[in-house]
């Protein structure tokens, strides 16, 4: 499929999702759907660095929180509409991603992963002690209940849902475009063998910096509307363990090789978590992720996509 066709199809699917959600017209659906879409963005962003380049990032929550807290900061300092906040958050988180990449990309494997974890701890400490954005007490972000669009009153949660939907569409289209491009081939060589990649003329450091910047920016964008979604933000919720764990687990469970893996993983896991939150308890979420991750690592180490591909290969003579 051509990239342009793919983008059109993605937009059509997104529009259909929004239309169906409108038909059901239950505010809770938007509330839960927002979280699932947010994980689609996070998982897709993680996969650009983790799946394509093979660099495991444990610090997704840090980028998410950078996005969320840049919104809190601007909310207090210079209020902007949410789409603009998303752009600003993407820019700031992109810079943080670039900086992290520059400082840590000479590290390989588990050392890189540990460094990203350290980044999350450092940032959380900074935010906890920064009074302007609420410090450890947290910050209230007052938002209207409805939004006036050309005389129509639409619920604010629908507005946020729509933005996350657009963001998810952008993230998936970006990931798919990278996969088929020169950049995508370059990323694959980094994942496979960096020395050989350099010998083949691939500027590995530059490509890795592109990946960390892009991945960080998308995660930050996913975090930007978060304070408006909750109405209140504190460091524990922005730097929550579930963001770091989910951004890794969702691509792993879906399959890290292509754009569709993180999407499948995020929709599947995100939905299960939302259902569990309502029917059992919200504390069971991380447990579900843990159990599923262990199960997949044993049964289908290449995720759902890899598992299906294997079945199809065996089916052929």
């Amino acid at each position: 499929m051509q990239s342009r066709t793919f983008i059109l199809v993605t937009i059509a699917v997104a529009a259909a999702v929004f239309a169906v959600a409108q038909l059901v017209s239950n505010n809770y659906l938007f509330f839960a759907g927002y979280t699932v879409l947010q994980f689609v963005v996070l998982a897709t962003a993680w996969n650009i660095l983790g799946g394509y380049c093979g660099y495991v990032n444990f610090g997704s929550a840090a980028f998410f929180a950078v996005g969320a807290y840049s919104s809190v900061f601007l909310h207090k300092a210079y209020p902007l509409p949410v789409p603009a906040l998303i752009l600003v958050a993407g820019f700031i988180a992109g810079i943080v991603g670039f900086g992290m990449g520059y400082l840590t990309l000479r590290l390989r494997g588990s050392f890189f992963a540990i460094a990203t974890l350290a980044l999350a701890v450092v940032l959380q400490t900074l935010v906890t002690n920064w009074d302007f954005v609420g410090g450890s007490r947290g910050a209230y972000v007052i938002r209207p209940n409805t939004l006036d669009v050309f005389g129509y009153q639409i619920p604010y949660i629908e507005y946020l849902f729509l933005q996350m939907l657009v963001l998810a569409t952008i993230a998936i289209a970006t990931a798919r475009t990278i996969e088929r491009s020169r950049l995508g081939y370059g990323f694959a060589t980094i994942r496979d063998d960096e020395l050989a990649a350099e010998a083949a003329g691939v500027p590995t450091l530059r490509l890795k910096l592109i990946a960390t910047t892009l991945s960080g920016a998308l995660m930050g964008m996913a975090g930007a509307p978060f304070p408006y979604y909750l109405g209140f933000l504190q460091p524990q919720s922005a730097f929550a363990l579930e963001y770091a764990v989910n951004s890794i687990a969702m691509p792993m469970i879906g399959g890290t090789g292509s754009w569709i893996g993180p999407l499948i993983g995020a929709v599947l896991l995100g939905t299960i978590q939302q259902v569990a939150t309502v029917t059992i308890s919200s504390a069971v979420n991380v447990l579900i992720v843990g159990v599923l991750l262990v199960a997949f690592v044993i049964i289908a180490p290449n995720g759902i996509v890899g598992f299906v591909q294997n079945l199809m290969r065996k089916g052929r003579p």
Partner: protein
Amino acid sequence: MTEPLLRIDQVGKRFGGFVALDGIVLDVAPGERLGLIGPNGSGKSTLVNCICGTLQNETGSVTFDGRKIDGLAAHQRTILGLARSFQLPRPFHSLSVADNLRIPLLYAVKARSGSHLSAGQLNDHCVEYLRLVGLDHKAAKLPRDLTQVEMRKLELARAIAAEPKLLIADESMAGLSHSEIEDILKLLVALSERGITIILIEHIMSAVMSFSQRLVVLVSGKKIADGKPDEVVRNPEVEKAYLG
């Protein structure tokens, strides 16, 4: 004498207290077929790594095609026209055999010429190089489906696909049978006839002797002989290094 393509001047490299290379001086002329031999641990691979930018030399300088390349990253040297194959094949294992060759075309060749190859041209080039090494029937396979000799051919093909001026083949024949060695030798001679300068690093003496126009011997990080192959192997110092 014409300007050398590669000039290695007083290149030295240490690993902690161990001197791996000690003031190596070596010129390689354009179009030359140079054999580089030496016992295990004599510094052959370190020298290759210093030439190609995988390691940086601590003293001396490397000049390639009239340009000092000290401090340049490996990929920049590849773009300048310096390609290598690795001693142990290092294919991109998640990419198909054809895609493995696509990488140097997409990166090294494109960056050098600045022009954009169309998808069709890219495929043509891939097929051409695959045919050159006799792997065209395996284009869609993954590297793990290849045999040992095919893997070595892929390794060479990927270096050739970078369209280098100088190719360094690091032990591309180790562990192969006699007829397989013949295959690789024929390939290297064909490349040399295309005008590519080749440095061959090898332990298999029959192959080195039949291929090289000039032979250089490294022992313990020092160059101990340099000259016509049959004269070099009669050199008493070389005999001593090899036979003790």
